[in-house]
């Protein structure tokens, strides 16, 4: 189960939701084994950065437009937005500490 701190983004609300602050989006799908592995990490990051950064998931099955726009053709992929601009891309699995450091870097600057 996804933590309630993790927001759910869709093709419709994506631009609004990513327009302000630091936002981490996890592109995933039900049938993707590695996505399931990354899910607890994303949950933990949402709790860790609660109130400081937004952590969200976007289901690529239900929302094909946003992945198309960012040429996402592999999952899991994490995109980090800062004030609406794409700032970082992580493809595949990564340790929670590495992702946290990346978020911190953009929060600090």
């Amino acid at each position, binding site marked *: 189960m996804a933590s309630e701190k993790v927001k759910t983004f869709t093709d419709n609300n994506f631009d609004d939701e990513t327009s302000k602050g630091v936002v981490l989006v996890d592109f995933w799908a039900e*049938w*993707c084994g590695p996505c399931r592995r990354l899910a607890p990490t994303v949950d933990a990051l949402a709790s860790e950065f609660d109130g400081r950064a937004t952590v969200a998931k976007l289901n690529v099955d239900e929302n094909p437009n946003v992945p198309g726009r960012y040429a996402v053709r*592999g999952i899991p*992929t994490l995109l980090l937005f800062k004030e609406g601009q794409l700032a970082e891309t992580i493809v595949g699995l990564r340790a*929670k500490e*590495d992702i946290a450091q990346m978020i911190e870097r953009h929060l600090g600057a």
Partner: protein
Amino acid sequence: MADRKVTIIGSGPAGLTAALYTARANLKPLLVEGLEAGGQLMLTTMVDNWPGFRDGIMGPDLMTEMRAQAERFGAEVMQGNVTKVDLQNRPFTLAFANGKSITTDALIIATGASARWLEIGSDRKLSGHGVSTCATCDGYFFRGRPIAVVGGGDSAMEEAIYLTRFASKVTVVHRRDALRASKIMQDKAFANPKIEFIWDSEVADVLDEGKGEVTGIVVRNLKTGHQTTLPLDGIFIAIGHTPNTSLFEGQIDLDANGYIRTQSGTKTNVAGVFAAGDVQDHIYRQAITAAGSGCMAAIDAERYVEGMSDHHAGEAALQTTS
């Protein structure tokens, strides 16, 4: 006193079987999952060669069952990644990405192997943007599009066949003039009208780094040297695996290809350190052989730990009598 009697690194069939057996031996094992938790089976669909499931079982489901079974007997599964080991001093020390560390009397290494890349630079840079090592994860993005699969083994054929569900056409690029895959997989692949083959060839480049997505590949014929550009939207790499042993370099014996050398069962050259599964096996590389060697490592580790306590008991007895 070490924090743990037995610690296992890796959560594929080898690691989880080792956890099951050491848990049932009351050794209260700690299993560190690693980044690619569940191992290679998490990237598969139907597994038809795991005995006991006559209709097959989905790879991720099999791993969920194995994990639950190990936990049922008291194995503790920890999310996380070992970043450093000290196998020179006893008890052994493992350090984690979160800065914490633990000590253990015996260690079972079951870190497996990860997909190998082409190592031509452009393949890694376009990872996630058309280059993939996981057909079940990324096939979906190529509905109605032409793609390539690189490799000639069972995994390559399995991926090529699976990908025909989505792709308009699958071109298999293979270095030799014949497949290494098993007969049954070859027959399936040759019979599939969506699959074409380019023999005696390697991928020289993946296009287009400038655009940030795959638009084609450059294929070089190894016999003639002739290069052709193939326009396509995706490329799946299935050219084998590399053992995950960089953590142990310089501390235990590895062979020329980086696999852990084992002897008389699952023993490494360091007493108390055992290895199981693909990390020490470049020949069989099956889920069932990995599980089998995980069981062997558990039994070897159990004997080692018992030997240690007998030794301590002996020492204690000597002290009381003297």
